[in-house]
């Protein structure tokens, strides 16, 4: 089996590769018993386009002795014996390409190591982890304050509104605000990059 991907699409084309397995999944779900228990096969098709960014140009295909090309591309009985029955049968778009022969593990490791992915993960975690800690603490402090500082909670703010009501309404406000901030952050910082790695075409296909 040739390493068909080496010469195939570069940056601009890469998203189409991602769309293929998704389309297959959508239409062929019944034929694919348990996707999660099966190393995804179609996805390897996109290795090549992704590889260069992943581990650097030089290492594109032999990044690590453990992933020697032979072991990676040699037909593995478990995978090649029934390429189309157990796993997703490839629909016509895939037929245009060679059947996937890369080991999916290798692909995921490479993508994981890629700068693009690292940046997505960093921006996701950098927003989500501190924010989650903050709102959980803010909520627990609010609940605990009812017991810890009942007098302060009773002091009046405006009309019948006291501190306790104000903090309660602030919980509503902060929840809405954080949800909006998260969505905005994901939209502006992460979505495009993640789309770059996969999704755009799939969205349009649906």
């Amino acid at each position: 089996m040739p390493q068909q991907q080496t010469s195939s699409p570069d940056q601009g084309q890469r998203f189409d590769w991602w769309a293929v397995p998704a389309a297959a999944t959508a239409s062929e779900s019944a034929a694919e018993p348990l996707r999660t228990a099966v190393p995804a096969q179609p996805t390897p098709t996109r290795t090549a386009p992704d590889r260069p960014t992943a581990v650097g140009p030089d290492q594109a295909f032999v990044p690590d002795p453990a992933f020697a090309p032979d072991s990676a591309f040699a037909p593995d009985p478990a995978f090649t014996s029934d390429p189309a029955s157990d796993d997703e049968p490839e629909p016509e778009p895939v037929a245009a390409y060679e059947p996937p022969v890369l080991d999916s593990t290798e692909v995921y490791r490479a993508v994981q190591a890629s700068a693009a992915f690292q940046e997505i993960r960093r921006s996701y975690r950098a927003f989500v982890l501190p924010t989650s800690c903050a709102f959980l603490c803010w909520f627990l402090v609010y609940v605990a304050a009812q017991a810890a500082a009942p007098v302060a909670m009773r002091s009046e703010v405006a009309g019948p509104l006291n501190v306790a009501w104000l903090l309660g309404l602030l919980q509503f406000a902060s929840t809405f605000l954080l949800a909006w901030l998260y969505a905005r952050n994901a939209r502006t910082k992460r979505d495009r990059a993640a789309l770059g790695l996969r999704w755009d075409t799939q969205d349009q296909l649906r």
Partner: protein
Amino acid sequence: MTTVTTMTAVMTTATPPPVAPAGDHHDMAIALFAVVVVVTLGITLWVGRQGNAAEDFYAGGRDFTPLQNGFALSGDYLSAASFLGVAGLIALYGYDGVLYSIGFLVAWLVVLMLVAELVRNAGRYTLADVLALRLRHRKVRAAAGGASVMVTLLYLVAQMVGAGSLVALLLGTGSPHARTWTIVAVGALMIVYVTIGGMRATTWIQIVKAFLLTAGSVLLTVLLLVRFHGDVFELMRQAADHSGAGARYLEPGLKYGATLTSRLDFFSLGLALVLGTAGLPHILSRFYTVPTARAARRSTMWAIGLVGGFYLMAIVLGLGATALVGSAEVRHANSAGNTAVPLLALVLGGGNGSTGGAVLFALISAIAFATILAVVAGLTLASSAAFAHDIWAGAWRGRPRTRRGRIVEKPSEQQEVVVARFAAAGIGAAAIVISLFAQQLNVAFLVGLAFAVAASSNLPVLLYSLFWSRFTARGAVWSVYGGLLPAITLVFFSPVVSGSKEALFPGIDFHWFPLENPGIISIPLGFLAGWIGTLTSAEPADADRFAELEVRALTGAGAA
């Protein structure tokens, strides 16, 4: 000490349903109940024919829009306990009812930020799918599937027992037969919805229900605010005047401030609510009904808007019930305050005996009924999916003949769906039987317990799997059981089961755990067990699998 119980409990009180004002509005309510049943059955039969694949049954074909799924999420989440119970609590206990409602909303931030998108990308049908992506071990699937069935069953029984007394209340009958038949009828309907319609019908029922619920709440809120000329402060003042508690009505402590134990209990409940929502199987499986992770995020945003808006309206309605009906009368009609909103509707429509009042009362009662039906259907579906997909096909029939982690000769998805339909019928039947036996018992604590179990067993394993690279299969199994068993054990030895006069078994006393909600202990234990299990694992974490999970979860690569 009984505080948390009654509040979680919302609708289940062992007290006999009081005599609600009899008359036209109950007849009209019965008619509208029938309309609800006919419409939901129609939806089921109509949508149920659109597909029979596993993707249709478990995930509704994955083609719902974010707006639709947002409504469905809020429909799944806002049980009758929320609709009638939270407003009733506010009507009776003022600010402390508000305090109770906030945990339900804040919980959605956990869902939004840590769970929704990643679960959508990494899983197919259930929570265990996400774990199985990196921990391909049948024990993990069995543990997670079992915990999911447990959580949904606890919640289901609480809902159905509540439904029995609630419907009897709304129909103005105190007869035990009415309750029994309500439970049987609700159970039979939910089985029909799920077995015939699967996720697609269930989702549409949720959407219709959430729309009705929102519309009904908006209608009542507008009528109420018009009556008060938009002056919320005046509403609060009048509510305090008619609450029988005066200024204390608007201050914390009317319900949860009695003793240190009850405060700690409330803290425990708050923790369980905030962390449990993200582990509820019927909420998680909703994210599979949309095509992408972005759609999952957007639907969560809609759900946050709808749930938040709903609770804000519930506060206004609770205050309104106190101001216009009065706490004493609300309590007289039902000691847990469940009829506060229907009674308020009666007053807003023109009072007892008026046509407007009768129509509004019947309308609100019918919405509450639709709420019950929709929530139990969602729970039954999630439960049957966990059983068929995780326990049966994943753990039991997922033959151990693995090659490079690949499981061979598993049952087909078609077989799996057949099993899931039977499982829905079986679980539904079990829930009916348990609920019939439990209907005279005070099972109110089950809602809080379901959240506590979800937070102690489902959430730790989910977060560890998604975020911790060194997490192992052993850690996963430990974390599920390490949260589940303490939660159940602690509740068994708590005052809700024995040793208090509102306990499950009031006659005997073997309790030693002082709190009614185990969350404050069992949630940390779940996380701790997962951590220790991982550290003591003989086999190291599989970095390849984690890479796959991480890449798929964050980018959506290969998502179903």
